[in-house]
């Protein structure tokens, strides 16, 4: 590990704080849409050692970047995927050494007790980082105003050009003020540079974007207000949880409570008795009570289409910032409403390869439980994973007959639960089994996979004594007193899953595999239809290589469930199929009526 307590000791001749400005496509005022490939507008770079400043407008940008990209120069940006997107749009190369100050600030403030969403607004912005260090902030009102103007696109007056360059320079100088504060907090410089490499790889994925059936999306958007009430009425028929008031559906808690009682579903509640209606609770409960799945999908779809923010450019590509290291575990955190792989599964049917191209969706098979087995060295748990179906494999090891109805669903809940220390009460509630049986299952699990349990205990001891945890690639989380035991148990597994995706993204960029979307433990890749089988094999290889790098030689298996998505085919998502079909039927009815 190399640590620099002073930025001046950084082993580079030049240290550039870089900020760029760009707008989507032709600019929003000229028919551009959010999701279009970006058009570079301005760049300001401030060299910290010499105080040299480069201010370049659109027409001054050339085929080569205005600063060095070799290993003697360090490029620092705040949310570097944006600056890298600018590089890619200009056809510039990858800087040999990059630090993403945004990622490093997140790293510095990565506290296991605090969810990113619970931070004050703007905490992770450049202004927030400056505020954190007690530095003078930047003018946020002016920033919003300037950003809005830039997004509109050309023409720009001379005054606007001067204002935008000054605004861009202010950000570059603000970043330069942050660097002396931030650099001493970076525990390991090589690992920070590695995270910078990941930002470069991710910027390629952001630039590619998922191909979307734009006509289909526009059709849904056009008819959405007219079909919304009908959609809710159709799906809600079996639930009776919504009330339509003036054509607007309202979810009623008391009706939902009555539904859960009718169905004998022990729905989780808060301490004050209120129903827990969080999306993750609906997701978890849908696993055990599949009858709730359609209601969950309906709520997700209404939320995602209500915001109407899905960022799809005129070229039919869903492009949005993917939020590298946006969570405690280091996983990406793209905007739920802008990203096609947000909570509404039915919208994924809009993903279609463009003519002549094909897509391949490849995910790690049972990634988390395998990581748990490998990290803890629990041979029995690994054997259960290797047996084929891990859920049935574990059920079998615990002596449950395969013929028992709902066995796989039960053990899916169990296996996902052991990763974060699910208690017998929660298991009984989620799986709809008796407390005694839940306790017995967990006791058998603890006895059977005692090496894993011991590893979890050791991890908790480590976190409690050292008050920090780290991945093998240097991403750490602070564990001050008050950190939830569940977080401590789950973090090493989730963060290693994230580390595998980071390594895989970097390898994909190096090997020329065109990733169009990273999805939790999976990738969506694109290539010519004729080559898609080879691309699938190459993707499998690089994902295995990435897992091997993180897990000391263990290659996580991958699968491409339905095979490639060929031209004219749609992405298939079982959990959203019913909703997708219903929406299409209602749109067709609407079109027939209006015709």
């Amino acid at each position, binding site marked *: 590990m190399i640590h620099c307590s002073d930025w001046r000791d950084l082993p580079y001749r030049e240290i550039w704080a870089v900020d760029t400005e760009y707008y989507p496509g032709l600019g929003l005022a000229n028919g551009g849409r959010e999701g279009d490939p970006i058009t570079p507008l301005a760049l300001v770079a401030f060299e910290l050692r010499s105080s040299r400043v480069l201010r370049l407008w659109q027409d001054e940008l050339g085929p080569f970047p205005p600063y060095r990209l070799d290993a003697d120069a360090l490029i620092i940006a705040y949310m570097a995927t944006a600056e890298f997107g600018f590089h890619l749009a200009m056809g510039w190369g990858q800087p040999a050494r990059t630090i993403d100050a945004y990622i490093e600030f997140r790293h510095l403030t990565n506290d296991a007790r605090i969810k990113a969403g619970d931070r004050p607004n703007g905490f992770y912005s450049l202004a927030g980082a400056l505020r954190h260090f007690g530095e003078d902030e930047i003018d946020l009102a002016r920033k919003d105003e300037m950003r809005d103007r830039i997004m509109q696109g050309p023409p720009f007056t001379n005054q606007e050009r001067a204002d935008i360059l000054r605004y861009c320079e202010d950000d570059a100088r603000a970043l330069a003020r942050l660097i002396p504060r931030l650099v001493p907090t970076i525990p390991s410089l090589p690992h920070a540079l590695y995270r910078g490499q990941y930002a470069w790889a991710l910027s390629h994925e952001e630039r590619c974007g998922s191909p979307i059936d734009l006509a289909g999306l526009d059709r849904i958007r056009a008819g959405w207000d007219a079909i919304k009430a009908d959609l809710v009425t159709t799906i809600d028929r079996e639930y009776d949880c919504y009330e339509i008031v003036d054509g607007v559906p309202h979810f009623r808690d008391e009706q939902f409570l009555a539904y859960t009682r009718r169905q004998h579903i022990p729905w989780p509640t808060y301490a004050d008795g209120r129903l827990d209606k969080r999306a993750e609770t609906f997701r978890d409960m849908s696993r055990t009570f599949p009858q709730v799945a359609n209601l969950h999908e309906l709520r997700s779809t209404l939320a995602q289409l209500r915001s109407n923010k899905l960022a799809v450019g005129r070229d039919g590509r869903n492009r949005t910032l993917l939020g590298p290291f946006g969570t405690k575990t280091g996983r990406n955190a793209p905007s739920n409403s802008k990203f096609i792989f947000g909570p509404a599964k039915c919208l994924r049917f809009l993903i279609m390869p463009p003519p002549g191209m094909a897509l391949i969706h490849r995910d790690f098979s049972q990634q988390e439980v395998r990581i748990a087995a490998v990290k803890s060295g629990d041979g029995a748990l690994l054997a259960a994973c290797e047996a084929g179906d891990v859920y049935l494999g574990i059920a079998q090891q615990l002596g449950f007959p395969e013929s028992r109805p709902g066995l796989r669903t039960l053990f899916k809940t169990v296996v996902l639960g052991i990763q974060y220390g699910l208690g017998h009460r929660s298991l009984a509630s989620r799986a709809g089994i008796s407390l005694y049986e839940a306790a017995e299952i967990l006791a058998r699990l603890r*006895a059977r996979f005692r090496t894993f349990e011991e590893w979890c205990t050791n991890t908790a001891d480590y976190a409690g004594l050292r008050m920090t945890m780290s*991945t093998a690639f240097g991403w750490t989380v602070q564990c001050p007193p008050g950190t939830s035991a569940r977080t401590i148990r789950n973090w090493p597994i989730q963060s290693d899953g994230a580390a595998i995706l980071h390594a895989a993204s970097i390898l994909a960029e190096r090997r020329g595999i065109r990733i169009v979307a990273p999805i939790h433990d999976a990738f969506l890749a694109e290539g010519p239809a004729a080559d898609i089988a080879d691309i699938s094999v190459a993707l499998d290889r690089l994902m295995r290589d990435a897992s*091997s*790098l993180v897990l*000391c030689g263990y290659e996580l298996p991958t699968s491409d469930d339905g095979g490639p998505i060929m031209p004219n085919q749609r992405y298939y998502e079982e959990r959203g199929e019913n909703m997708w079909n219903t929406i299409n039927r209602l749109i067709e009815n609407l079109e027939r009526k209006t015709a």
Partner: protein
Amino acid sequence: MTDAAPVPPDAGDIAKLWIDTGLGDALTTEHVHSIPIGKPRDFFRTHPDPAYRPRAEIYVQKSENVIGEQFFLIGPAMRGRIDEARPCILVCVVDRTGAPRLWPIMQPRHDEKDNAAWSSARAVAREGLGRWVKLVWKGRAYISRVADQGYAPDPDFGKLQSFNDLVKIAFGDHGIIHNEDHPIFRDLFGKVEQSEGNDDPLL
């Protein structure tokens, strides 16, 4: 875990960044501070090492004023001195969480006949060497109940302390009757409490 696979040539720089986080390393040691004595109530496995089931002599105190039983091990110098004490096999068994227990299985004295309760208990303990079993009293003897296949895997006996250490923890400082000064011995034989430097003029 598999042996480390060769690193692909384009991933050598990534592989060099791998650090051992020490997350799963044991930073603490677990100390057992109490070990129950008596017959196991739940499914158990018997320690396969004969050193963990020595012959011993034990006295079971069933005091009028104390709920349950108290077990006292008779030290070598006191063997045969207490009529109420019995020969036994002191068997170490564990439950599925790996927690040990010492189970004194009574044996007949040299002039006594064996009885069904003792011999059947020994048979169940023997069965516990190979599978998870539970003691069930039926009629005038114990029978075994065998656990389902998935109840628990074979225990890891290697983690247990030495038998002597287990005995020390289970019986404690006052649980072994080494000489006539032991309060239980004096109690059994109606001997007067001895205390050094007693200045009570009546004694």
